[in-house]
């Protein structure tokens, strides 16, 4: 805690975003398939597939999550949001059978984040989606923990590639705990070192000079 001075705003995880979190801003930029339930006059240019002046009712297009969330209203439908495949029943069955076989990076990379955000949109499937998200996380916990602690003594890079963003962050916090312990074991924990920030700036300076 003391050694790294840059402490970014953490993502909210779950249904609530953190306003200032860069991770949450990137997550909420994920695109969702939607269908307009009314027309949007004078915004036709947003739909690249047509050249009309308006976006007519019934248009199918992709909008970022933040905009879908902003426009979505329970009472007066201006758009309906299609559930991405990975949260639908077919995939849920796969996840519930064995969460460890799934490549969440490919399916995501914000599998948990986006899934939680989807719960903002009314759907009868919401309880099952929420349940699958939690079960998947718990089902993958052991492998993530063990590999972040190098318990298998094997190359973990293949596994890490299949982690979703949230899991990746957890994995690296596990690894840094392990590294801190190992460097202590080797007697290096008390060595005073140069700031990594300083070293990186120096590297960059050299790169700047070299054409």
């Amino acid at each position, binding site marked *: 805690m003391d050694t790294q*001075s840059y402490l970014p705003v953490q993502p909210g995880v779950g249904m609530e975003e953190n*306003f200032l979190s860069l991770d949450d*801003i990137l997550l909420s930029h994920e695109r969702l398939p939607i269908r307009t339930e009314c027309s949007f006059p004078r915004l036709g240019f947003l739909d690249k597939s047509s050249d009309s002046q308006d976006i007519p009712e019934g248009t199918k297009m992709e909008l970022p999550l933040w905009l879908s969330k902003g426009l979505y209203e329970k009472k007066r439908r201006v758009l309906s949001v299609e559930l991405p495949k990975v949260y639908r029943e077919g995939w849920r069955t796969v996840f519930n059978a064995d969460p460890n076989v799934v490549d969440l990076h490919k399916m995501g990379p914000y599998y948990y984040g986006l899934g939680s955000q989807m719960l903002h949109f009314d759907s009868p499937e919401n309880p099952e989606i929420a349940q699958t998200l939690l079960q998947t996380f718990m089902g993958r916990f052991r492998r993530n923990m063990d590999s972040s602690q190098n318990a298998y003594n094997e190359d973990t890079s293949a596994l890490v590639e299949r982690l979703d963003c949230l899991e990746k962050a957890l994995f690296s916090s596990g690894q840094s705990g392990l590294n801190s312990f190992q460097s202590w074991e080797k007697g290096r924990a008390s060595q*005073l070192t140069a700031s990594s920030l300083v070293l990186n700036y120096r590297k960059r300076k050299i790169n700047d000079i070299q054409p």
Partner: protein
Amino acid sequence: MFCEKAMELIRELQRSSEGQLPAFNEDGLRQVLQEMEALYEQNQTDVNEAKADGRADLIPSIKLRHCCLLRNQRCLTAYLYDRLLRIRALRWEYGSVLPANVRFHMCAEEVQWFSHYKKSLASFMRSLGGAEGLDITQDMKPPKSLYIQVRCLKDHGELEIDDGTVILLKKNSQHFLPRWKCEQLIRQGVLEHVMS
């Protein structure tokens, strides 16, 4: 789509790993503000028309533009706030004087923020009692010994120790120095802590 420029700013920070401060993107900031102005004006026009001519059908588009305005506001605020967190880190890692190549990446207001932060921190540390207060940017790791062996990684001129002795820090020279005198120089990459 709207707000793409704002996303560019966010991605730029995300690409700068380990808390490094990329150059302040004044151009990007200006473009986002311009987009906001255009969105706002278009909305003003539509709002007036909706009111005057009873054109309720314009409301969804007004709302959409408003969402984009809020999104741009969020992105810019988050961009600037995250930069402050990086600039704060510089105070703790470099000390109160920043090298020119780092300062070049800050805008005038950021330089000002940094200098205020520096002052607040200094007066906090001075207020802690004793003759000179307590420098809490030191003692980052638990102490092991009063003196440590260090090697100079570059020429740094003279260093005065407590008792008045002056030592010349010449590249590759080795010294046995009071730990607390070295801590910052080690962090700055001037000295290297040699473990026995």
